[in-house]
């Protein structure tokens, strides 16, 4: 490339003499990204990966000071943001990046859906992706409780209450999540374990699978482009696409630190399990659509308990969503599949619409 890297070549030679880097070389030389009018969506996967790395890094830093017990959790977060040098920055970046990551993940998922990237041979990529989104929501839910403040406590209480309505195993699920009948310090410790050990482990495994599949199979083109008359253009991943990726990540980094400095996350007051539930408790925005949906469904529908029906519907919808690659026969055959496009649009409208309703609902 350029003349100013003799050192790297020396280092590279030393490593290559011991380790076979041909796979990496091949990747750098050969990997391409399709270029078409929908290419912009390709950036969102890498963006989510970048944000995930930010989360891991800031999360590990927070671990140096955080204490996962109901007596000390709140105070330890307060300590971090007031006493530890740049603690405010690390904590706020962590909180904001979590939200941004989930937002980016939704965009990544819906764009992949609408581009039918799930079709054969990429079914497993899709399945692992949806599971990864579920894991991210788990990260969000478990992480939200960790500061042990009033809002988080009640949001967790309301959120975990819902699993009770799952048939047969509902109550055991509740006990499993809460570490008991009620939300207590035991819940906090358990959620901490999920957040820093269980979820990272499972996510790493699934993410590795997801990325390996993508590298192995290359990027998919939407059927419209695939079938189109124009010549297929590709952009080399290194350096063209990667540089653009980096620019995007840089912009997101700027957004993150700006949010941390100008719109810091409030800590609020310490959780008091004996205080009455404050009015207008809402979960985080990424659960809002499900929460609003549960509120919308009437208490009784045709002799079935409303909440049970709502959960059943959401569960069925989720299952459908994961199995889409196997259900969309037309896309699998490489044909246009307008039905599923409409299903995708409806899903987006459903999620976005209900989220908006929840957001705009006046807080008492």
């Amino acid at each position: 490339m350029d003349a100013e890297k003799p050192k790297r070549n020396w280092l590279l030679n030393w490593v290559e003499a011991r380790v076979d880097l041909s796979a990496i070389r091949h990747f750098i030389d050969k990997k391409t990204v399709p270029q078409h009018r929908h290419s912009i969506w390709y950036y969102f996967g890498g963006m989510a990966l970048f944000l995930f790395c930010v989360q891991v890094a800031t999360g590990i830093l927070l671990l140096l000071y955080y204490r996962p017990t109901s007596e000390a959790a709140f105070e330890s977060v307060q300590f971090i943001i007031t006493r530890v040098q740049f603690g405010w920055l690390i904590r706020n970046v962590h909180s904001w990046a979590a939200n941004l990551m989930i937002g980016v993940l939704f965009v990544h998922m819906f764009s992949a859906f609408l581009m039918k990237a799930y079709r054969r041979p990429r079914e497993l990529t899709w399945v692992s992706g949806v599971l990864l989104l579920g894991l991210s929501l788990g990260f969000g839910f478990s992480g939200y409780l960790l500061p042990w403040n009033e809002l988080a406590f009640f949001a967790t209480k309301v959120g975990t209450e819902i699993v009770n309505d799952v048939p047969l195993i509902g109550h055991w699920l509740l006990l499993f999540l809460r570490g008991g009948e009620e939300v207590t310090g035991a819940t906090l410790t358990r959620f901490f374990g999920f957040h820093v050990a269980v979820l990272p482990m499972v996510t790493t495994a699934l993410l590795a699978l997801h990325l390996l599949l993508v590298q192995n199979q290359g990027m998919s083109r939407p059927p419209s482009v695939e079938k189109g008359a124009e010549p297929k253009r590709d952009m080399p991943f290194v350096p063209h696409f990667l540089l653009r990726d980096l620019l995007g990540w840089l912009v997101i980094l700027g957004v993150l630190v700006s949010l941390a400095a100008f719109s810091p996350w409030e800590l609020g007051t310490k959780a008091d399990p004996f205080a009455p539930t404050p009015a207008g408790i809402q979960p985080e925005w990424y659960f809002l659509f499900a929460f609003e949906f549960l509120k919308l469904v009437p208490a009784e529908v045709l002799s079935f308990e409303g909440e049970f029906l709502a959960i059943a519907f959401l569960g069925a919808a989720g299952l459908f969503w994961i199995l889409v690659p196997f259900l969309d026969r037309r896309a699998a055959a490489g044909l246009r599949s307008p039905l599923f496009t409409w299903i995708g649009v409806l899903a987006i409208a459903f999620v976005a619409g209900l989220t908006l309703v929840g957001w705009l609902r006046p807080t008492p």
Partner: protein
Amino acid sequence: MWPALFFCLVALLASGPAWGTTPNTCVSCHAELDDDEELVAPVRLMEQDIHSRHGFSCADCHGGDATSDDEDESMDEEKGFVGKPGKARVIEMCGKCHSDAAFISRYNPKLRVDQVALYHTSVHGQRLLEKGDKKVAACVDCHGSHGILPPTDPRSPVYAANVPQTCSRCHSDPIYMKEYNIPTDQYDKYRTSVHGRPLLEKGELGAPACNDCHGNHGATPPGVSSLTNVCGQCHPINNELVNQSPHYPAFAKLGIAACETCHSHHDIESPSDAMVGTEPPAVCIRCHHEDKWPKGWAGARAIRASLDSLSGQYRAAEALVRRAERAGMEVGDALFDLNEAAGSLTKTRSTLHSFNPGRVEEVQRGGMELAEKALQKAQAALDELEFRRKGLGLSLVVIAVLGVALFLKIRAVDREPPKK
């Protein structure tokens, strides 16, 4: 034989209430007089009475014979029977035991035995025993006659939080009190006062009730010269300061009581800085007219100015600390200093009772320093916030520069011919 004996025992035990170790004919008869509330009520009430709990019963106070079934025998005056005693007789009845130290110490060694003696010195006692006034309060009017509970029992009419209501039964009745020519608005005034509200609304026993200032059994309104001592029981510093101040000889000459002149006595309000100075509603200008007592007038003005500048400084410091706190900054140290400053403000307000502007200024200076410290710490916190924003600005510049360079690099790389 044994079954018959057993039966008799059961019958005996089942007859009538079980208090008192021996069967009590007073109780067994009076318990059946359901049609006359006045005669049957005592039986019910005595079940709670502290005297019953110690094994006393009807005859121990009323005399007579509690073992006889015969009405005339059991209520025989020759056996010492006293029916419903008159007020003076009540004092004697109660005093028979309650002034006997040796007797009382068999039941409650800590109980005082000077109530009757004190009562003799009280206004109630003097009117009853010297003028035969039967309208005044005697023992049973406050303590009850049957069902007497110790004063520490919240159900007792002489429990601290109940005392004002007990006194007001007579003292707030204008018809009853007509001939005495004293006001009947004390309870109404007290209820809204800084002492009355915590006691009556929150049961806060630290607040004084009527007896804390007027005495219990020796109930007498404190005289003009002793009023400050009474207030000084809980407010010793202010009392001491006033006694050392120029107001003391002045008030003594005028024959007015110190505390009461500015703070009044039953309707004592929570004091405010507005009470001090030369603008209404200050109390100083009631006497200190600008031309008549100019030195005092100037002093009042100076003291108020001192207070105002300290409370202003405190408020400014508090506002800044809260701002920094809301912005998420660490303000623990500042809050602590603010707490100390608040204490200093209270001390300054207390010191004004010396009516010495110089002394007030001295104490006030300490408070100003503390408030200043808190203000500076809050300002430091807000400066740190500014620093963070500047630091952010700088890193955004770095990001922007790098971003532009990256953008140009992308363009340059795009322009290069493809490698393959």
